[in-house]
């Protein structure tokens, strides 16, 4: 499946240049500028002083760039928010990768009773809105004394079936003969999994890891419900709080938005290839 995904160098690269194409590309470039603009506005805004953010004539580029916004941002415990966010994303990623690679392998390759039923339930659950379960989940977390701890956000996300589904798609590419050979060689289940399966589904784990990390970073609704102590806030919650408290201090809010988005954008750009594969694999024969 991965093999067919690579792009063939177009044999007919000398296609005619039609007016339609020229206009389309121009529109495409304009739209791209529009899509990049929000990020540009966040970053430039974060360096503007208090006067220029509320000036009647907006500055396209900060005429007098200042770092004040970042100073006051880090006085709110923005570093703490970042730390919490990274912790949540890291733990979600780790737990999801471990449980999903095991589960995905089992569904793809183990012929245990009830596997089709379990898989069907996983698929159906995926189509339901995650937020719907937040009400009982909040009660459950309070009962488990986990409300207002990062675990309240981590555990439900690990349970989300997308990971198992994705890893099943990757595990299906493993040839049965390899498993057979391992069994004849006398390798136990654990060894087979660690030494044969894991290396083969590594690209899948990479895709899932980066996908989970980015999704957890931006999972605002879950965080909003589960975390409300200043010390457990995440960066998304922090930005929302800044906006609620200081609605026109746009410079400071933009500094928050920059701190909340630039790190994850960098992560995305570095691992873009894996990420794209993760999204695409999820869709193949969905």
């Amino acid at each position: 499946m991965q093999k067919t995904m690579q792009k063939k160098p177009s044999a007919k690269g000398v296609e005619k240049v039609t007016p339609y194409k020229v206009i389309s590309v121009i529109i495409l470039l304009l739209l791209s500028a529009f899509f990049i603009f929000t990020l540009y506005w966040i970053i430039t805004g974060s360096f503007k002083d208090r006067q220029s953010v509320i000036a009647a004539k907006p500055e396209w580029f900060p005429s007098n760039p200042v770092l004040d916004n970042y100073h006051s941002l880090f006085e709110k415990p923005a570093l703490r928010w970042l730390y919490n966010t990274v912790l949540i994303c890291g733990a979600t990623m780790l737990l999801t990768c471990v449980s999903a690679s095991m589960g995905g392998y089992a569904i793809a390759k183990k012929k245990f009773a009830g596997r089709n039923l379990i898989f069907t339930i996983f698929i159906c659950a995926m189509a339901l809105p995650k937020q719907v379960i937040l009400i009982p989940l909040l009660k459950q977390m309070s009962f488990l004394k986990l409300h207002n701890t990062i675990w309240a956000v981590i555990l439900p996300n690990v349970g989300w079936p997308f990971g198992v589904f994705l890893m099943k798609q990757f595990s299906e590419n493993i040839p049965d003969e390899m498993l057979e050979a391992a069994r004849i060689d006398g390798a136990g289940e654990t060894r087979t999994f660690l030494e044969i399966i894991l290396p083969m589904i590594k690209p899948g784990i990479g895709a899932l890891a980066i996908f989970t990390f980015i999704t957890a970073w931006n999972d605002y609704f879950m965080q909003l419900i589960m975390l409300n102590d200043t010390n457990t806030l995440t960066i998304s919650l922090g930005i929302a709080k800044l906006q609620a408290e200081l609605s026109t201090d746009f410079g400071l809010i933009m500094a928050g938005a920059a701190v909340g988005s630039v790190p994850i954008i960098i992560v995305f750009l570095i691992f873009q290839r894996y990420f794209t594969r993760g999204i695409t694999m999820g869709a193949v024969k969905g």
Partner: protein
Amino acid sequence: MQISSKHSMRMARRRENISGYLFMAPSLLFFIGFVIFPMGMCLVTSFFNYTMMDFSFIGLKNYSEMFADSVFIKSLVNTIVIVVVSVPITCVFSLWVASLIYKMKDVYTSFFRCVFYLPVVTGSVAVTVVWKWIFNNYYGLLNYVAKNLGLISTNVNWIGNSNTALGCIIMILLTTSVGQPIVLYTSALSNVDKSLIEAAQVDGATNLQTFWYIKWPQIMYTTLYILIITTINSFQCFALIQLLTSGGPNYSTSTIMYYIYYNAFKLSRYGYGSAMGIFLAAIIAIFSALQFKVAKTDNG
């Protein structure tokens, strides 16, 4: 001989069962504990009057209250408007972008893919706060630009006006939802069998004919998947609304998702919120099933 082979087969099957479930154990544990169990609880609490003070069985009263609640109806209508407007635009727009970029050089393809994915990665909170500034009545860029272009004569309160607020929300939602479909379509289009396209072109098919008869059937499954995920995303649109308008002015931008949040977490009406949640889940399930069915019959 036969007996022992039967015996060893049964042993093998049992081993397969045990190891299968052992490998499934961690994910099943999380899945049942934190997805299935709360889902069941959601259904149960939807039959209760469940608040801070009270927990008593009231049967279907939450559901009947729902349909008599004018704010709920308003939220339902808004949600449907958002879905009906944003899903087709997202799909057509992504297909258009993908069909332009998939033949480009790899560098350009991945550049455009990243650009259109950017708002998704930036995150709904960061995207929403910057748009809130751009839309601002007094200090926003939009009013400034629109005035200079002569489109408006006085400042418009874009998100404080019930005529424009929902439009603003749909616009932002669109920027955050085209990223994934573009990635999917780009990959699907580059997987279309090249020899078929060439054969069609040799036979003198126009671009439009090639697209309709050769490419479209082959990207049908991708389209279906995109329709379903975009529908689910549009139904769930929440951060945007909570941060931009809080459902106002006068509930003109309230959606079911927002209204659930408002009832359950602001008014502590957990039972009523759960009933709406169940209703929303049911609608999404029906929508997905319908799309699946339509796509299947289209495909022949």
